[in-house]
């Protein structure tokens, strides 16, 4: 029996210059423990492996032609190799792993010209699972963000850091 698999295709985002990191992290954070995440990317997203490994994900990757890659991420202890399972469906291994209520998603929106920091944070916010919070780092105090948070049922608390950057903690109101 196959586990339910969420497929996230970020190839078009990357080709059109959009930053897909927050979208991937949000999809990973909201993934139910009995599901896998199948990521389609125009290159092998190696940096992502280590980031998601810290959140308990294991992965299996393979090239699917035209330079594109598909990677399957799972919180379960075992996943089948994609090479052995071409359709991307991976057997389910139900485990007790759950998205912890205190899940913290970090969004680094530094080094971006306005309004990209706000876009990056709000894109993450839209996929935020219940109970999770966002910790967003920006170069400037995100003055335009607060009204957007409020209208979406969130609150933000910003603190200036010693290095001159700002960290905004975002959670549901």
């Amino acid at each position: 029996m196959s586990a339910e698999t969420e497929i996230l295709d970020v190839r078009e985002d990357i080709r059109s210059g959009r930053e897909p990191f927050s979208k991937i992290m949000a999809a990973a954070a909201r993934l139910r423990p009995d599901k896998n995440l199948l990521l389609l990317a125009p290159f092998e997203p190696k940096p992502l492996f280590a980031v998601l490994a810290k959140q308990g994900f294991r992965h299996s990757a393979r090239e699917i032609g035209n330079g594109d890659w598909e990677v399957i991420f799972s919180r379960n202890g075992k996943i089948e190799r994609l090479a052995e399972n071409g359709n991307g469906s991976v057997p389910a291994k139900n485990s007790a792993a759950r998205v912890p209520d205190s899940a913290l998603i970090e969004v680094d929106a530094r080094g971006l010209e306005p309004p990209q920091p706000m876009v990056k944070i709000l894109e993450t916010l839209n996929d935020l699972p219940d109970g999770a919070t966002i910790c967003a780092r920006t170069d400037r105090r995100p003055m335009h963000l607060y009204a957007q948070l409020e209208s979406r049922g969130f609150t933000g608390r910003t603190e200036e850091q010693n290095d001159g950057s700002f960290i905004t903690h975002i959670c549901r109101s």
Partner: protein
Amino acid sequence: MEVSLPISAGVKTGNHNNGRKPATISPGGLASAAANSITLPLSFILTGLLALFAGVIWLLAQPEILTAYHYNANAVAITHLFALGWLCSIVMGAMYQLVPVALETKLFSERLAKIQFIFHAVGFIGMVLAFRGWNMKWVGLFGSIFAAGVCLFIYNVSRTLLRIPKWNTVAISVGSAISWILLTVTAGLFIVAAKTGHANFMFRFNPIGAMHAHAHLGALGFFTMLIVGVSYKLIPMFTLSEIQNPKRALTSVILLDGGIAGAFICILFQSTLKPLFACIVVVALTVYGAEMLAILRARKRRALDWGVTYFLTAISLLAPLSILALVLSWPKLPLNPFTGQLENAYGFIAFVGFISFAVIGMLYKIIPFLVWFGTYSKHIGRAQVPALAEMYSEKLQMTGYWIFIAALAVTVSGILFSNAIAARTGCVLFAASLSTLAFNAAEILSHWFRPQLKAMPVIVRKS
């Protein structure tokens, strides 16, 4: 396959239209919804653009305004159309948007700003028409209406400044600029009062000296001070850099304040100390230039976009303007037709080459952002929204830049050599350059009426 569609068509944009909502940022950093309405700054900006286009059409019809000595009704009228209608409208509208964001607070009162807009529009239109007919009583009346608007503006910005969590160079420059505009308007009203037989003490001043003192106070004290101060915030933001030497930045603003105060008094009293204060202003601008160069050298974004290029080209014109200022401040300079035209060229490069070009560069940042924010902010994360750069044509923007440079060169030549044909050709080129701005502004504004949203290419599920 399941595609997420925008679900926020009915979602309000939040409470940012509520001018009464307190906008405190507590010491811990908890900020309330602090963004302002965008219709307010856009109203000022659209008014400014209309005044600009009206001014260029006027110059096309009467280019001899530029080639004759500037102490005449049409020259004074068109100068006020550009200074108040175009530049003040844009700068005030932009300040209502940028000052709260740059200084991390909220505008004291949007309601007062809306009332000011009415005083502002009625005041400057009436003044320009009254100047054109050289009816000083009407100039005094509409000037007083405009001044009432300026007082509301100063009160609003001052109360906003009192809210800021910490003072910095940008805040000091904004505080300085609103002080200088108060003095500029006061000086203007006294000049008019003298011409209508009131304020007899004004007769001790040479009328041209008083006019030049008033013009320098506005150009240097309000516009230049704001360009200097605000660029310390905006240029690092747009080039991904930071201020390299805060003390140097502060020094430039303080020196500029000192130079403006001294220059105003010296020009008013026709003092021989004029060159000294001209030098202080030039030193202040040199210090500013040094800090801007350092900021640019440290930038992380190597390629400069066209908006920033407009702005940086404009501020580089401070170099020839400084030389002209030093020459024209010389007490023994004879007043003959050529030096008269030199003064015209100085004023034209200052208002059009430096201030207007810098303002156009920043408009290419401000208008797309305002329209984008008002139209798309509620859709972020729920639908694909266009990037700012996708809202207008970069090619047109680049074309407008080069035509503007050509227009400036041709018009200044026409002014210097009193050649009306060259001046008219230059004005045609200005009109061509500004038509690229008009086209791009219309394209940007079209997003306001017809948002260009696409469905998110997001998550496909399968079992």
